[in-house]
């Protein structure tokens, strides 16, 4: 399995071959937590070049979906498939999924005491690229990305997420994404709790990565982030399923009329 992943996903390394356009395919996915079914048969496809938005009421299973895709051990897969360019992610450990090109920006980023942002990011980047990266090369790269994220340089020396404000944690997630250059990113409410300036920065970061080799699923409650990152597709998730899919106008409808209205339309 690991060998397969390498063949499929490390296209950016080596021979200069054109990277395959990424496709994340979710088929009839069912996930439970502590024996309770949360995601109840969900289909979704995100391709390179596309931005999808996923909206849905609290508790509808959005975070469960994203953690399950990323491979958190607490979430049990009861059925279905998650494929990244044909590779079954569900058979991979979380780190193998990341190395295959998946990235999850956490709704609640975890604090890791004693581990500096810089040390962590260099280790992560080396793991993703599968090669040593010199200290100077790394520092230059980090400085460049921190500038993009409008982050103060002192962040590099701070302990990962420890004592970060809510907004700083989200910015730190975006810094990680910008540095690791995933093929498919899931942003779980990265916009929640951000001030207008930070929101712009997130928008700028995602937009800077847009292109054939990058696709994103943006989980959000608010239309405002979608003003910065124009989605191609909007999905509405209720009670573990996608009940409706449409264009950006769907997000406007949600904002205007609420989920109950959409539910009633579907029923």
């Amino acid at each position: 399995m690991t060998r397969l992943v390498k063949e499929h996903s490390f296209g950016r390394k080596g021979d200069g071959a054109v990277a395959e356009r990424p496709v994340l395919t979710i088929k009839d996915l069912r996930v439970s937590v502590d024996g309770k079914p949360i995601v109840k048969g969900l289909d979704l496809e995100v391709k390179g070049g596309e931005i999808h938005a996923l909206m849905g009421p609290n508790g509808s299973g959005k975070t469960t979906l994203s953690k399950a895709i990323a491979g958190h051990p607490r979430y049990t897969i009861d059925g279905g498939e998650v494929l990244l360019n044909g590779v079954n992610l569900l058979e991979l450990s979380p780190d193998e999924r990341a190395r295959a090109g998946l990235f999850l920006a956490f709704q609640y980023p975890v604090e890791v005491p004693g581990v500096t942002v810089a040390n962590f990011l260099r280790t992560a980047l080396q793991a993703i690229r599968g090669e040593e990266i010199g200290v100077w090369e790394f520092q230059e790269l980090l400085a460049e990305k921190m500038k993009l994220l409008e982050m103060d340089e002192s962040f590099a020396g701070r302990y990962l997420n420890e004592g970060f404000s809510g907004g700083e944690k989200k910015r730190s997630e975006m810094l990680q994404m910008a540095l690791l250059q995933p093929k498919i990113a899931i942003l779980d409410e990265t916009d929640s709790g951000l001030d207008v300036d930070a929101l712009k920065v997130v928008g700028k970061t995602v937009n800077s990565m847009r292109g054939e080799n990058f696709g994103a699923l943006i989980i959000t409650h608010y239309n405002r982030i979608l003003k910065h990152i124009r989605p191609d597709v909007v999905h509405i998730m209720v009670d573990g399923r996608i009940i409706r899919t449409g264009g950006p106008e769907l997000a406007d409808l949600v904002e205007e009329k609420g989920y109950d209205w959409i539910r009633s339309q579907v029923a």
Partner: protein
Amino acid sequence: MAQLTSLTSRAALEAEARRRGEPDWLREFRLRAWDFALGLDLPSRTDEKWRRTDLTGLDLGRVNPEVPAGAPQEVPEAFAPMVGEGKTLVLRNGVAVRAPEGLPAGVIVTDLETAARQYPDLVQPYLMTQAVRPEESIFTALHAAFFRGGAFVYLPRGAQVEEPIQILTWADGPGAGLLGHTLVVAEEGASARVVEYWASPAMPEGTPHLGVVEILTGPGARIDYSGVQNWGPGVWSFTTRRTKVGRDATVNWLLAEFGGELVRSEQYTALDQEGGEGNLKVLFFASGNQHIDIVAEDLHYPTGRRTVGDIVGRGVLQDQSRVVFRGKGHIMRGAKGSTCFLRENALMLNRGCRADSIPSLFIDDDQVERAGHAATSGKIDEDELFYLMSRGLTRKQATRLIVEGFFKPILDTVELPALRRELESLVDRKLGL
């Protein structure tokens, strides 16, 4: 006293001391300790302080004061990274194979057997008379009877040693290398940093090590002492360390218990002079089948007014290992205006290991400045692991970062680069990296 029957006889002990040309007082001291040991039993598990450590199978008859035949005389390879720095004394199987040069006037750093012959007036008044006493336990009594090699560090009044004094102890096999005694004496106003490192290859299961460390400080003196225990597998290590802190003196000590198979490590900060301060940090990393039993106590005696005691215990467990950490602070009646804190944290990397943290604080004086204790032990956080792994780090890499982060607050206090690197490398080796 069945355990001692295979040990050398009193007559043999006496003959050996004469053969080595030890001064009369030391020979008498050893014989008194021997007689005392004969009357003692091994600690029993009915004794609360020993309840969690099973000594079944311990054979103190295997205590062996001899230098292994044909033992090499050079500095062992393992010490290469550290030997170039500081003022370094290297002991191999109890024999000094390298001595420090260029010490400031009056400062003595030498092996203890030599010191006892050359500087009896400086050694006799302090050797197991003020800090650790032979009568404390069967381990200290036998240690007194049999100690070999060892180190004597003497700082005369006002002496300041800038470079670290390093005492590196290696044992090639059972024998004299596992019977070292460290005696540090700092007279009024003197200061130095002392680094001690004990290491060996694997030994036959149950090979005893009996160690004692004594640190005595005069008024206003300051000693920063670091001690690393990294005996090979198979060693059953019994160590008693005590510092007696002088008036307005400071002892900062950092101990790292990494090696051995069964380890009983006791450290006491005795604060009986006004204004004394003792800060103790104990690091541990237990793996495999290791059993590490740590005692760490701050004792604020009635005469120890305005004394400061602090204990931090911090360590990691993996595999089937077990750690007992018994921290204690005692402010006795009369030790007014004193401060005492205990903190213990254990991090378990898998199921199957076990940490018992037993903190206690006794306050008999009603005018205590500040005192408190806190203890936590828990399994490595699955969400932290997942978060790091979701960025591409393998479980091993993620664990390593978390463990490094866990030790970092303590390692950050280690000023000497070679020591810090060595501690980090010991942690990595434990993690199988």
